[in-house]
């Protein structure tokens, strides 16, 4: 019954309601489908979570959305536009930007430079090897503003390598925000973090979600509960169920799938 309704929804709902959408998305590695027949719809302006037990295909799914992997079957749509065959750099220009599970900063650049690199992406001077760096100093104010927003105002001239783990994540978010993305894909934003870091990062994500669509892959279910309006649960590479946190948390299938994770839920 629910399968029929899902199909009907795809046909009738205008693609414009979804910032990000996949149809029958699948990826096989040497015949084994890590992700299979996934129809994911992320509403514009919502914070959507992708969860599931280990090996459920979350990361593969994520990599398909960010174009790190190319799908075996199905299509990916950004704002109704088919982006299945586009490259990472091209989807970034269209406003779909990802973060990385391992902290993705430029360790030898200062915080200011880290963010300025991202701002250079649309500035059109990034091939000027003959210009002094002051040619892009116009970008500094915006870079400082972004760093202030994530609490790094007093670390402008520190190299990224000198930052603590939590601050590296904050720097990464500032760098990502520099592109002013319409859709933000966050890969386990709190992975490997201590309790003291999780709360500020969660708050930061909630702040930046204003006016944006965010899809999060996350293990920490309390973070998911705080942030996300809708949750899709994956298991064995397929969508197990989708709904609000309460709906999903009380779904007997989800509880069975997680087993050991029952307490956490």
């Amino acid at each position: 019954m629910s399968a029929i309704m899902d199909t009907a929804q795809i046909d009738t709902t205008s693609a414009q309601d979804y910032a990000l959408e996949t149809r029958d998305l699948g990826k096989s590695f040497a015949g084994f489908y890590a992700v299979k027949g996934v129809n994911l719809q992320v509403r514009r302006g919502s914070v959507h979570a992708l969860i599931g037990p280990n090996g459920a295909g979350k990361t593969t799914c994520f990599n398909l959305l960010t174009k790190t992997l190319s799908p075996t079957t199905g299509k990916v749509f950004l704002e109704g536009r088919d982006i299945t065959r586009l490259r990472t750099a091209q989807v970034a220009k269209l406003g779909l930007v990802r973060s990385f599970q391992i902290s993705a900063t430029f360790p030898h650049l200062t915080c200011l430079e880290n963010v300025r690199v991202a701002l250079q992406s649309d500035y059109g001077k990034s091939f000027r090897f003959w210009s002094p760096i002051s040619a892009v100093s116009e970008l500094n104010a915006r870079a400082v503003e972004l760093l202030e927003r994530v609490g790094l105002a007093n670390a402008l001239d520190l190299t990224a390598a000198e930052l603590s783990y939590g601050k590296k994540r904050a720097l990464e978010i500032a760098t990502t925000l520099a592109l002013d993305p319409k859709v933000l894909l966050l890969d386990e934003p709190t992975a490997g973090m201590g309790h003291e870091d999780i709360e500020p990062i969660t708050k930061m994500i909630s702040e930046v979600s204003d006016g944006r669509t965010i899809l999060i892959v996350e293990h920490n279910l309390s973070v998911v509960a705080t942030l996300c309006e809708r949750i899709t649960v994956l298991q064995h590479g397929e969508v197990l169920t989708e709904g609000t946190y309460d709906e999903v948390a009380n779904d007997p299938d989800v509880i069975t799938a997680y087993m050991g994770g029952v307490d956490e839920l």
Partner: protein
Amino acid sequence: MNRLLLIGLLLIVAIAAPFFVYPVLLMTVLCFVIFASSFNLLLGYAGLLCFGHAMFFGTAAYITGYVLKTTPISIEIAILGGALFSAAIGYGVALVSVRRSGIQFAMITLAISQFIYFVLLQSEFTGGEDGMQRIPRNDLFGVIDVADNNAYYYVVLAFAVAAVALVYRIVHSPYGEVLKAIRDNEPRVESLGFRPERYKVLAITLSAGLAGLGGALKATVFQFATLTDVSWTVSGEVILMTLMGGLGTLVGPMVGAGLVIWMNDELSQFGEWSLIAQGAILLLVIIFFRRGVVGEVQNLVRLVRSR
């Protein structure tokens, strides 16, 4: 301010040097300073290990030599022509190799450089095994006679200063910032909407052109061009210079070039043993001075300051 003073002092030393040291030795050092700086631009700032950098160095030497031997074109244009030719080769090499990284990139560049070595060996205009002899030093700007080594030293010095200044400008440009970001984390740069290959192609082209400038100058200094300049041993030597001096620092390759040439000079009396000594020294540098001479000094200064 301090830095300007230091640069001024260095320039005075460089200008006065030929009165105290044999100018040909100084000019050799300057040619290799340019060569090592070009290599450093690629490995230190773009993270690309080119194992055949001598192909750019040696080919430009032949091209410049050939132009000077067969035409009356003034010397500075012949030198720039050689450098441009190498930049063009660099562009071609980049298109073939840029999608690879690490050891694969190193191997592809090594293979192409060996190919170029044999092309030059077989070509008639290079003189094959004998090398290209008696390359004339045509007048500078068509009017100034530079046959004298003391006079020519200043031409080479001017080229070297310009080349190092260019490397400095590239490293501290908007482009340089993106290049360093690619070195640090290429997938991340791509996710920010850049096409990293394009930046790397430009880096390889620029580096090849600068390496060519060093080679072209060397051909005019010694007034002959040989296969040695294209051989893998020279490719290895430039790696040694850069690592010894300090990778990713602007001064490092200059110090490294000076050190290695001085070392070769001193060790040459021991014949074959000089290679073994060179290997041992490289080993020591890698084990104990991982940052190279200049890198270690900078690190010391930083430690003292932060106290």
